[in-house]
Each structure stands twice: as C-alpha cells, then as structure tokens.
C-alpha cells in the first residue's frame, strides 16, 4: 500500500512506518537520491587526471573521476553491455580509459563508448555510452543528480552554501582537503535515524553519559548544562539543511581545537590563530576562533561535523554506513592538520568516543520500529521557535526543530 506522506508526517508527529517500510525506502531512493541532488565526493580525493573513487547514488554504482579536461565527472560504473562493474576497487587511478574485464568494451572518462572488440558483430547496433550524472561543485564539495530536470543546483543548496562558506572560512588558505581516508561505520538502522541523531541537541547527557562522566570534554558547557543555561540553538535553514550552533557555546578561543584554559597555546595553533586574524575581518575571525566550523547537515546525505565530514551510503532499509574523514586545511602545517586526524578518530567511527554510543541507541530505536506503527513524537519546542524574515527557524538547541526541519522537507519531496 502506498504511503500517504501528508498523513504520516503531521504536526510534529511522524509514523514509525516511515523507517520500517521497504516501499518507503524504495520511494526514497527514487525521489530523494535519484531525482534530487546528492553529495558524492570531495574534489581533493581525486587530484590527478584519471583518479577515481567509487560511490553509490542511491543504491546504484557510480565512479567519480577526474577527466582529461581536469573536470570531475560522475559516470555509471555499470558496463552498458551487461552491467558488469567497470571498477571494483574503492579508489585508484585509471590510465586513459575504463575497460570492462568481461568482453573488453572501452569507455572514456566522460562515459563515451570508445571501442567494442570484434566490432563487426556490432555493426548497426546502437550500443550505449555510460550514463553520466549532472555535476556541480561548491567549495570542493561535489554534488550530482541523475535527473536531467532536477531543480537548479543553487536552489537545492540554498543556505547550505553559507554552511560550506563557513567551513572554508576556517582554513587560512580558504581551501580544505578531505583526502586522508574514510572510516566506514555500519549500523543496523534506517538512514534517517542517523540524520535525526546527528542533528539532535537533546541527547548528549544520556547517550554520551560515559563521555561526560569520564572526561573533561569541550561539549560539556555547550550542550550538557541545564536547559536555561544553554545559549546554543537549533536552526532550520530550509531545504532540509540544518544546523546546531554548538560552537556558539564556546567561550574561549579555539576550544573547538582542544585548547584548554590556563594552558599555553601550542605553537601551531597560535600560528593558525594569527593567520586567521590576518586573513579575516575582526568579526569573521572572531567567529572562526571561537565557534569554529559548523555542526550542520546538508540534505540529503552530507553532514559537516565540525572538523569532519560524514556522508551516508545506505544498503537497504535497515543498513546504513557512515563514512567519516577529517577536514584538513590546505597549506596549513602538518602538525595542525594531524590534530584533525586525531579529533576524527576520537569522535567519529566505530571505535570513537561518540559515534558508537549513538549507534547502539539508534539500533535499539530501530528495533522499536518493528511491530504496529506508532507515533514518533517530535513536537518538543514547537511553541518557542522563532521564524526569521527569510523563513529560517531558530529554537533552543534541545528542541526538535532540527528533526522537524528534516521531515518538513522530506514530506515536500516525498509527496510530490
């Protein structure tokens, strides 16, 4: 039975069937991941001509490759002869072309069919080139869509641009790198649970209780104090893009980089601070030095987790893989950049101090979805939201404004 999305998502209540139904999942793959724009890679993963990474769009296999014209292409990884994968490794370099190891069809980096062995038998047949996705890049972040009539990229990215701009502001060179490898953490959960969790400002005290009890962490003052002491906010940027302004809770310079009060600032961080002050106006420099990079989600599959990137590749309704990698600053010292590596290992991935606890809780939540559909109550803070002139909605960081932001946009897309 087809899902009635306007009934299933209403007034801050969503039906648990939206996470647990295979029909819904298939419809998401089509409407969100095939018809819409998705994040596929960061440009710096493929610096040289022929460099590639394998990525899925929805469930389908694609290759993100640097073409001979130096431009990034996103082409199908399925041979147009009989669907065999053209590249089977996660990353590498292709010399000149893609050759299928089944019968030897050869394709260019733009997907063009260049050669078919024993060509006589193919005479008169319209063998196909590899389908290519439409590609747009913003700040090095590569987005793609399989829909020739998709909404314009600028309209899709919307306020997400400001989020990416703020990431780039944090780099003294204005450029970032995401090229140190990916950790892949699998959870038995519906992908939407991971998104709801990543933008959830309400769970820190409980899910991350062990961190709070065992460590003196930077999150403590910004998200782990009493309700009226919290100055941080949840923001619905519209278009499904969401932010938690965790950084706004930091009161000392470069806390987000682990600088502790009363301790001397390490030389590489001091150097970084100077470079930021040199580069930016006082206002922007202050924002970078105190708040740091954002904690924000860009619809539908990219999450900027402060100094890290996460993106999601789902395998089926209840299997989700989060890939995480740190954001490094192009041109900054190795010493500074290695801090981001260690921060990433410490907070994201299956053995980190944060994410596996989120994973355990959302896996329990996932189990709860089995059975008769129930109402998922996301109404918290509905009455204290502030709507700005531009329609952007702001509320207390613990409010489910962030989850509602996701679901409102989801509903628009899924009911279209």
């Amino acid at each position, binding site marked *: 039975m087809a899902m009635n999305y306007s009934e299933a998502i209403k007034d801050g209540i969503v039906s648990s069937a939206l996470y647990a139904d295979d029909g819904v999942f298939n419809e998401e793959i089509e409407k969100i991941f095939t018809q819409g724009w998705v994040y596929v890679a960061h440009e710096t993963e493929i610096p040289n001509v022929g460099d590639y990474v394998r990525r899925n769009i929805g469930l389908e296999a694609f290759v993100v490759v640097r073409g001979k014209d130096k431009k990034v292409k996103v082409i199908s990884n399925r041979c147009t002869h009989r669907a065999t994968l053209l590249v089977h490794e996660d990353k590498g370099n292709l010399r000149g072309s893609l050759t299928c190891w089944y019968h030897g069809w050869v394709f260019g980096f733009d997907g063009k069919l260049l050669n078919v062995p024993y060509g006589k038998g193919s005479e008169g047949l319209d063998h196909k080139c590899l389908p290519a996705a439409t590609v747009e890049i913003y700040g090095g972040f590569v987005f793609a869509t399989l829909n020739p009539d998709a909404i314009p990229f600028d309209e899709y990215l919307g306020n997400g641009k400001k989020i990416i701009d703020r990431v780039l502001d944090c780099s003294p060179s204005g450029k970032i790198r995401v090229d140190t490898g990916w*950790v892949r953490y699998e*959870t038995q959960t519906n992908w939407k649970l991971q998104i709801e969790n990543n933008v959830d400002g309400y769970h820190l005290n409980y899910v991350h209780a*062990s961190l709070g009890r065992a*460590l003196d962490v930077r999150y403590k003052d910004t998200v782990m104090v009493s309700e009226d002491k919290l100055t941080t906010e949840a923001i619905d940027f519209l278009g499904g893009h969401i932010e938690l302004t965790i950084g706004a809770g930091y009161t000392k310079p470069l806390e987000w980089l682990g600088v502790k009060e009363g301790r001397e600032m390490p030389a590489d961080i001091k150097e970084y601070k100077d470079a930021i002050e040199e580069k930016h106006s006082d206002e922007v420099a202050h924002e970078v030095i105190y708040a740091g990079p954002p904690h924000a989600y860009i619809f539908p599959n990219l999450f900027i987790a402060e100094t890290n990137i996460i993106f999601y590749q789902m395998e089926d309704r209840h299997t989700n893989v989060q890939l995480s990698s740190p954001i490094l600053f192009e041109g900054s010292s190795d010493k500074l950049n290695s801090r981001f*590596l260690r921060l990433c290992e*410490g907070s994201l991935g*299956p053995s980190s101090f944060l994410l596996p*606890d989120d994973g355990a809780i959302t896996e*329990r939540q996932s189990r709860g979805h089995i059975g008769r559909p129930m109402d998922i109550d996301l109404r918290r803070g509905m009455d204290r939201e502030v709507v700005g002139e531009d329609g952007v909605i702001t509320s207390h960081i613990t409010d489910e404004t962030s989850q509602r932001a996701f679901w409102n946009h989801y509903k628009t897309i899924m009911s279209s």
Partner: protein
Amino acid sequence: MKLSESEYRDVTQFIYKEARFADNSLYSEWEELLNDDFEYMVPIEHGESDPTKRLLILFDNRARAASRVRMLKTGVRHTQTPPSPMARVISNIEVEKIAEGEYRVYAAFMLGELQVQAHPNKHIWVGRYEYLLKEVEGTLGMSLKKVFLIDSAHKIPALGFLI
C-alpha cells in the same frame, strides 16, 4: 638477537593474558599491562602509512587509552553495555627479540563477538596483531598493539570493546 625458550614462553603467556583480559572486559587488569609509551592502533591501510598524514580507525596514545578505559568503566558506555561476550584465538605467533627485554610479536587472530547491546548478533573479527613488548623495571608491558583487520577499509560495526 637470540631468543631463549623461557623468553618465548613469557612473551606468549603475556599475549594470551592480554587477550583474556580483553575478552572478559577486565578493563583495569588490561590497563595494568600498558607501558607509559603505549600506542594502540587500528589502521585503515595495511602498508607503510604515516599516521601523522593518514586517518586510522583507532589511534590511542596512553592518555587516550586511559580515557577509553575510564569510559568503559562508567557502565553507561552504551556500545559496550553490557559488554559483548567474546573469545579470540591467537595463532601463528612469531617473536623477534630486538633488544634486551624488548620483543616484537606478530600473530593472527579470530575473534567471535556476540553483540548484545541492541539486537543480539554474532560478528567474527579476523586480522593480524603486531605488538611491541618491553620490560620496564623487570616487568613485561605492552608499548604497541597494532590491529590489522582484514576488512579495515570496508564497513565494520561498532568496535567499542578492546580488540
């Protein structure tokens, strides 16, 4: 350097003991085996790869290992609440004596884990270990444990326990 029979026995006994403490989530006992220069690594890449330039799945220095253990001991580290029942088999042990009281050890392992934190699920971890053991004030301790998972570059489930 030449390795004596008794050194070989001490080293392998140490490795089995470390495995037993980890299997049984005996966190304090495990931590006592660590030297001050301890490093704990689960790399993604298996070749020569510089950790100051490449991301690892897990990379603890001694201080971070202490935090890891402290978190596990709170009883609310959900990814290991309750701790997974586990058993690992360690084999193909090779011991290299690199200095007096200093040993590099290579081994293969298989570890069965019953994940009991959400929906019970059995998972088999397979890989190779590399250890650096050093005697400090007459007591053998662990200065390095490097875990090369066969699937480190692929998706893996939660790794909240001591592997």
